[in-house]
């Protein structure tokens, strides 16, 4: 018979990595997923009127990746030593690779965005106007001659090459996130091959939702001409289909993960208990399953619903809330499993870091919206014709 055990003295270790790092992982998966969905869709459509959405799907992830290191830096014990990660390189650590992957990812997004915007920037710079000075600044060297099609033809090869490079880095980024968490072999919730699939599914879901939401916001804020709006709305309805199926894929991945946990000893069963009935059950059942999976699935189930920008945006917000909740659940939940005792580990309150994170995310969103007013997202003929 098993004897009862009473704990007299033990140490609580707490949760070492807080919400900033959880948000960091989510934002990176969101940026990578957005670019993957946007660029793979371009490969499918290969149509000029899809180009504005490809710009959204490349430039907005760049903004995320440019600002997201702030989360990491703010969380370090020595923020001023952040740069040492680049040259004190330790080859057995996934983070040592991740620092480079995310940096190169950001650079490739920036260059790809540059080529995507370049024809419109050249034409707008020639035309003059409120932002033409800025456009000239963004175009190094002499402004090119010729119309949009000629400029496009000249840069086509470079543009697609950088699109391919950035796509490769996007996949690498998602794989890196999965490998990063699964490399902690002492953490039973993370030490699973399913981590790569979880980040993949979360990335694609978040990416398609983010594209729907941001493109609808773009159309709302940047006075898109009707002839450009119609095909874009068709594409956005198609993103709704991607969102629907990625939600299904995400549900399947989580299901397999939870089943696998059941067969990973007592620790695995405790990890699954943590989601189902334990301290994260509300976040799991309400935010992750009901709001994040079921609601957007229902809202994108029928074509009529997907085609309505408001409903599609609502579905996108719900799916984004679900993916954020999923990453936070697995990240914070994985750390709340005790290492040496019998009680859940808890995060010590970090009000300063929380405020910093929320302010940075708000700034990020404002930058998204500001770029819609400043940068030429629409194709030049359309905006010229519409003008």
């Amino acid at each position: 018979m098993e004897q009862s055990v009473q704990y007299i003295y033990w140490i609580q270790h707490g949760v070492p990595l807080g919400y900033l790092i959880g948000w960091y992982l989510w934002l990176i998966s969101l940026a990578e997923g957005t670019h993957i969905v946007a660029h793979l869709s371009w490969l499918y459509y290969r149509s000029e009127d899809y180009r504005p959405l490809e710009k959204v799907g490349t430039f907005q992830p760049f903004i995320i990746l440019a600002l997201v290191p702030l989360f990491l830096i703010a969380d370090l014990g020595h923020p001023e030593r952040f740069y040492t990660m680049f040259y004190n390189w330790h080859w057995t650590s996934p983070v040592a690779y991740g620092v480079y992957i995310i940096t190169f990812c950001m650079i490739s997004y920036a260059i790809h965005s540059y080529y995507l915007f370049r024809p419109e920037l050249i034409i707008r710079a020639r035309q003059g106007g409120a932002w033409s000075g800025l456009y000239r600044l963004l175009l190094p060297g002499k402004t090119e001659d010729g119309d949009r099609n000629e400029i496009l033809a000249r840069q086509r090869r470079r543009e697609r090459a950088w699109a391919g490079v950035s796509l490769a880095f996007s996949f690498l980024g998602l794989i890196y996130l999965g490998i990063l968490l699964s490399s902690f072999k002492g953490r039973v919730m993370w030490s699973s091959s399913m981590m790569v699939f979880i980040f993949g599914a979360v990335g694609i879901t978040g990416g398609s939702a983010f594209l729907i939401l941001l493109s609808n916001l773009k159309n709302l804020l940047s006075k898109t001409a009707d002839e450009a709006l119609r095909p874009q709305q068709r594409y956005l309805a198609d993103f709704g289909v991607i969102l629907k199926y990625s939600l299904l894929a995400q549900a399947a991945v989580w299901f397999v993960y939870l089943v696998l946990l059941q067969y990973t000893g007592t620790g695995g069963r405790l990890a699954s208990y943590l989601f189902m009935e334990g301290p994260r059950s509300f976040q799991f059942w309400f935010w992750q399953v009901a709001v994040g999976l079921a609601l957007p699935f229902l809202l994108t189930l029928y074509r009529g619903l997907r085609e309505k920008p408001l409903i599609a945006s609502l579905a996108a917000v719900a799916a984004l809330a679900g993916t954020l909740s999923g990453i936070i659940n697995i990240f914070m939940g994985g750390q709340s499993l005790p290492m040496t005792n019998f009680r859940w580990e808890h995060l010590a309150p970090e009000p300063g870091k929380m405020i910093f994170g929320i302010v940075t995310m708000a700034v990020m969103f404002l930058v998204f919206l500001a770029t819609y007013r400043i940068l030429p997202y629409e194709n030049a003929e359309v905006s010229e014709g519409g003008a």
Partner: protein
Amino acid sequence: MPKPEKPLDRRGFLRKAGASLSVLGAGVVLFQAPTLAGAAGRPKKYGMVIDCNRCTDCQGCTIACISENNVPDGHYRSWVKCIEKGEYPNLSTHFLPRLCNNCEDAPCLNLCPTGATYRTPQDGVVHVNRDVCVGCRICVEACPYGSRFVNPLTNTADKCDFCYHRITRGLEPACVDACTGRARIFGDLNDPQSPVSVYMADKSTQRLRADLDTKPKVHYVHADEAIMGPDYNLLLAGR
């Protein structure tokens, strides 16, 4: 006009083959020499054995460690876990002195992104270089034993290094010195004459989380199964 090539006769072949084998053999010997020399004078492997039957939970080790290493309040490099098993009158109390295991395959070392966590090759002790550590807490996360923490005074990772400043001067770690029951025995695990090897020679020992294959260098004798790991059953039972 090119010079006609002389056909190789048996004598020539044997001479060339012999010379080649000699060069090859000399190369192998030279290449192996440092390894062979190393095997003769093996590097040290500092480790500890803790006899839980000798521990009285006096917390002398905890206090000695704090004062020796200036460990900040609320953090521990060494501590003693204590449980009670059974129901009155059939009760038993168990203690488990804890510290960094200085694992041979340390997850904290493998996952440290800057290499701030390193092992001294001459004795196998795992250290933190405070000048390189960025305080990312990956190592704290990676340690399956909860042996690491971020020192709020230095904002870098901190852990037990077997009182390296003492053992390199021939002294014992502070916790070993302060142990009233002589439960902690420290020494070179590679030296069969060291106190730790002598003590372990006729006893079966246990190591924490052996399933993870981190090869901890802290061994336990007479440790109760219930105290050795996290207790997930209690949490699963919803208590």
